[in-house]
């Protein structure tokens, strides 16, 4: 039957066991005689991607499978489409392919579906006249009538078309407030395809239980003349019922109190963009898509890290499957294995290594490289520092965002693109305003199984001004920058744009492709830039060869600061167990505690006592000769015990740059030829530099469409 799963075939082509579920096969004997021919040299070549230090991504380098003749491989599972990664790109691709009648297996290194989308804000900028824009132009509600607020934008601001979208996504003249032109490097063929498929991708999500609130603004780098961004929501109710669009308060979580397995970050009040008793965040989208995929028969192999893409020949022929290794995660406190929220459609598989055959193709939706310090250091060598994580680190685990899909693609001949786009937007590596947790990008709360990995939500500061209450020091205990400016980022290019975002005219007034948008006089007028993250990553007395790691960063403050700015430093916002928050009676003891208790504190904070004394003298004098504090915000002495140290994190969030693909989401090789049977989407690709989820959604959608057309 079209769309039914077929059992794995034996080497004669006969179907073994014939029901609608993929079957395991005994491969132990086969694996035992795997020859190791070219594997060594290939492995050695690519092991530069291996992890360095605790907490870094661990790359699997099996190397054996391609050494084996492809036709000799005995497959453990088989499907028309094998999707690597069940996140924003992979889920959409899987649904699209499944809708076309293909059997689909999603392989994911984590224990649950959703990827980064699960803990994201869920904001999705599409456009081009997509169904939401048309809905809001008409002033309509959603099918259930949950949306009761009127459209936020005027019909003119929502009137869009594919041509406009394509032009805006490739508009060289648009700059941000740091005078960088983010759209200039976008691959034109891909952007054209994304523009053409944006409305359909939105429709697919809406057809698969995703309810979008009113359109509000746009995501950065998603065009600036029209409003295109909307986030998902659900209605609070007595049951969590994806079909009905309702969710219980327990599953939705409560702000500052608790999260849930459904949503690692409590869903936010969306009454301003939807209606009363509605809540939203990325989990509303991720869970709805996952629910629909399961309902349609997509199967999931969790706890399975894709190590290798298998091609007929190492660098030629079709891609015919993947090899994956077992990657279970345990609760660090109880040792219990983490399991997915839902289990229908799960294939439980615990063997160390398995192979999955893909009859039509493999789709790489493994996410980006933000969790791989070696890989990301290609863009910024200082970010080889393993002390700094990828956003979503706790939810995705230590192997999340480890560039595995990109590396596996390279190993079968793929080339890269868009690599220069990482430095072009300050949502890649930046300093969030959240202290005292490794996963500083988001405010995960107890309730999700991964909270025990982070143990603290973090102290959410109230803005850049909250930094007036602390000093920021490096690994040797020295200040390095004006704290007030430490987390500041330039205004990004997003609707409605305008002067604070780097463009002279806002929204409807913006003229695409106009040289005046970036003429030097305008740049001089609006230019703005902060270097806090660069100063934070600078070498210091504790940096040593060969990597000269800058080490962790610490916010040092006293109990008066906590009182003055109203910070909640109690659990679960902080933890005295995870090494990211310390309290002491004296500064000397604080320094000793940090050195002893933090996993990446390699050297003593020799200068901390002197730094605090110096700071207190500066506060008493009313001027900070070192870094200019006191001019822009008050200074406060750090003298009231107890004293605190909370981690300041540089977090790598978005990944730009990855596998080079074409307008069909097919992966290309070094000479621009398609690698047959290999597709990729989202942050595993260099498809563009739109922030938010849409790039992943659309490229996944395109991949699903074209996989269905594979012979």
């Amino acid at each position, binding site marked *: 039957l079209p769309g039914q799963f077929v059992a794995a075939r034996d080497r004669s082509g006969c179907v073994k066991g014939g029901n609608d579920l993929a079957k395991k096969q005994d491969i132990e004997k086969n694996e035992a005689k795997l020859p190791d021919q070219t594997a060594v040299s290939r492995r050695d070549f690519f092991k530069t991607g291996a992890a360095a230090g605790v907490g870094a991504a661990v790359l699997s380098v099996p190397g054996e499978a391609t050494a084996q003749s492809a036709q000799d491989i005995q497959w453990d599972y088989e499907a028309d489409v094998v999707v690597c990664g069940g996140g924003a790109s992979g889920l959409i691709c899987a649904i699209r392919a499944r809708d076309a009648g293909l059997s689909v297996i999603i392989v994911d290194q984590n224990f649950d579906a959703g990827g980064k989308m699960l803990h*994201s*804000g*869920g*904001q999705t900028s599409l456009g081009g006249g997509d169904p939401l824009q048309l809905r809001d132009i008409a002033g309509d509600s959603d099918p259930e009538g949950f949306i009761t607020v009127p459209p936020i934008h005027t019909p003119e601001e929502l009137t869009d078309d594919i041509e406009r979208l394509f032009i805006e996504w490739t508009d060289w003249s648009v700059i941000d407030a740091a005078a960088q032109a983010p759209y200039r490097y976008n691959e034109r063929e891909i952007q054209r395809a994304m523009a053409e498929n944006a409305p359909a991708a939105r429709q697919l999500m809406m057809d698969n239980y995703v309810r979008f609130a009113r359109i*509000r*603004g*746009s*995501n*950065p780098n998603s065009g600036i003349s029209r409003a295109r*961004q909307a986030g998902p929501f659900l209605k609070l109710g007595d049951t969590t019922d994806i079909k009905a669009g309702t969710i219980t308060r327990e599953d939705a979580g409560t*702000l500052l109190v608790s999260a849930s397995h459904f949503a690692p*970050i409590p869903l*936010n009040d*969306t009454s301003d963009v939807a209606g009363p008793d509605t809540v*939203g*965040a*990325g989990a509303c989208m991720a869970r709805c898509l996952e629910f629909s995929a399961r309902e349609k028969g997509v199967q999931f192999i969790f706890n399975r890290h894709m190590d290798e893409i298998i091609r007929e020949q190492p660098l030629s022929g079709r891609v015919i499957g993947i090899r994956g290794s077992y990657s279970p995660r345990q609760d660090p406190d109880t040792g219990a294995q983490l399991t997915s929220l839902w289990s229908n459609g799960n294939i439980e598989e615990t063997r160390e290594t398995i192979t999955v055959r893909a009859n039509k193709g493999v789709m790489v939706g493994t996410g980006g490289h933000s969790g791989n310090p070696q890989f990301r250091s290609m863009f910024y060598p200082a970010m080889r520092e393993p002390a700094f994580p990828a956003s979503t680190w706790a939810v995705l685990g230590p192997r999340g965002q480890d560039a595995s899909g990109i590396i596996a693609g390279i190993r079968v001949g793929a080339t890269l693109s868009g690599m220069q786009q990482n430095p072009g937007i300050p*949502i890649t590596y930046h300093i969030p305003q959240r202290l005292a947790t490794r996963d500083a990008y*988001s*405010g995960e709360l107890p309730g999700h199984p991964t909270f025990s990995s982070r143990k603290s939500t973090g102290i*959410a500061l*109230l*803005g850049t*001004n*909250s930094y*007036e209450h602390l000093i920021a020091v490096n690994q040797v205990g020295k200040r390095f920058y004006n704290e*007030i400016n430490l987390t500041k*980022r*330039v*205004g*990004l290019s*997003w609707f409605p744009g305008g002067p*604070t975002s780097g463009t002279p005219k806002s929204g409807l007034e913006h003229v695409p492709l106009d040289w005046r948008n970036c003429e030097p006089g305008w740049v001089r007028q609006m230019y703005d830039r902060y270097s806090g993250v660069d100063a934070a990553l600078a070498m210091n007395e504790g940096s040593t060869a060969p990597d000269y790691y800058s080490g962790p960063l610490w916010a040092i403050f006293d*109990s*008066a600061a906590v009182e*003055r*700015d*109203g910070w909640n430093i109690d659990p679960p916002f902080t933890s005295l167990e995870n090494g990211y928050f310390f*309290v002491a*009676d*004296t500064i*000397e*003891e604080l320094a000793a505690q940090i050195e002893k208790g933090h996993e990446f504190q390699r050297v003593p904070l020799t200068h901390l006592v002197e730094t605090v004394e110096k700071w207190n*003298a500066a506060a*008493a004098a*009313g001027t900070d000769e070192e870094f200019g504090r*006191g*001019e*822009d*915000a*008050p*200074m*406060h*002495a750090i*003298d*009231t*015990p*107890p004293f605190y140290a909370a981690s300041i994190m540089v977090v790598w969030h978005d990944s730009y740059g990855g596998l080079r693909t074409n307008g069909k989401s097919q992966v290309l090789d070094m000479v621009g030829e398609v690698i047959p049977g290999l597709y990729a989407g989202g942050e595993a690709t260099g498809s563009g530099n739109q*922030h*938010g989820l849409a790039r992943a959604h659309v490229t996944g959608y395109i991949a699903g469409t074209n996989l269905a057309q594979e012979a």
Partner: protein
Amino acid sequence: MVADSDKTPVHYTFTVEVSPPEVDAGAEIVLECRVACPPGLDQSDLSVSIRDVDGAELAVAELRQIDGGTFIANEILLKAPLSVGEHIFRAVLIVHEEDGTSYEASSTEVAFAVKAHAMRLNVWALPTAIAAGDRFTLKAGIKCSAGCKLAGKELSIFDGDGIQVGCGTLLDEVWPGTSALYFTEMEGNAPLTVGKHKWEVRISAWGSGTPHAAGALTFDVNVVDPPDCEVTVEALDAGTQTPIERARIVMHPYRALTGENGVATLKVSKGNYKLLVSGSKYIASTKTIEVKDDITVRAELTLEPIVDPASYYTF
């Protein structure tokens, strides 16, 4: 029982590390013993005896094999002596034979230094500007490096000329939120001359029982002219025109927080000031004001911009 052995002497490599090498009197030290047996020697029953300078046994620990011929005992806890200075213990390696006899195979010295407990002083809640001659208060606290109870100990304050200007007794309870910071509140009169005065808070050493070193901390007493003007600052949200509570007001060296009504009052001397008004989530306001008489200043603060629209749904 340890007996002489008639077997051929075996050369063991026996090392002992002490941590920390310098320790507070009476505090805990940790010894790690490591023994490397000669190749081919099948030895599995070793222990170590730690003895003081008089030969009295302080601790005994079994060594466990970690690989091949390497044995360790890595968490031998001992209390350091109370007398300050260099100390030497002796670690003796004992081999236990299968026949039940034992012999001392090797020994090594364990050297470490004992020091008096250090005093870490702190002064806080001292006004940033004190009118000449005015009475003021401050808090002073002390933490012993070993966390000893300090209740009842005397603190003294001296001015820049070394004249004692105040004293206090550490209270029974520790400062809230601390594990062993003993404190007291002290009161005194500011000097009559305007300017920064270097004062010092001191605690004397004592040697009865556990030795404690003397401690001292210098701090500034900032004396200003008596204020003759009153500055009222109103902090408001520029958009909603609603008051901003707990906004920080600084007219160096004067400072205050606004109340529920968004208003703070500062008593200052006439002159020119840079007025900083800062509220959580707002861009701080900076303006220069000239104070010649009582005045009211209105500070309208603008909310910090959203730089990432995705933050609509993240927090």
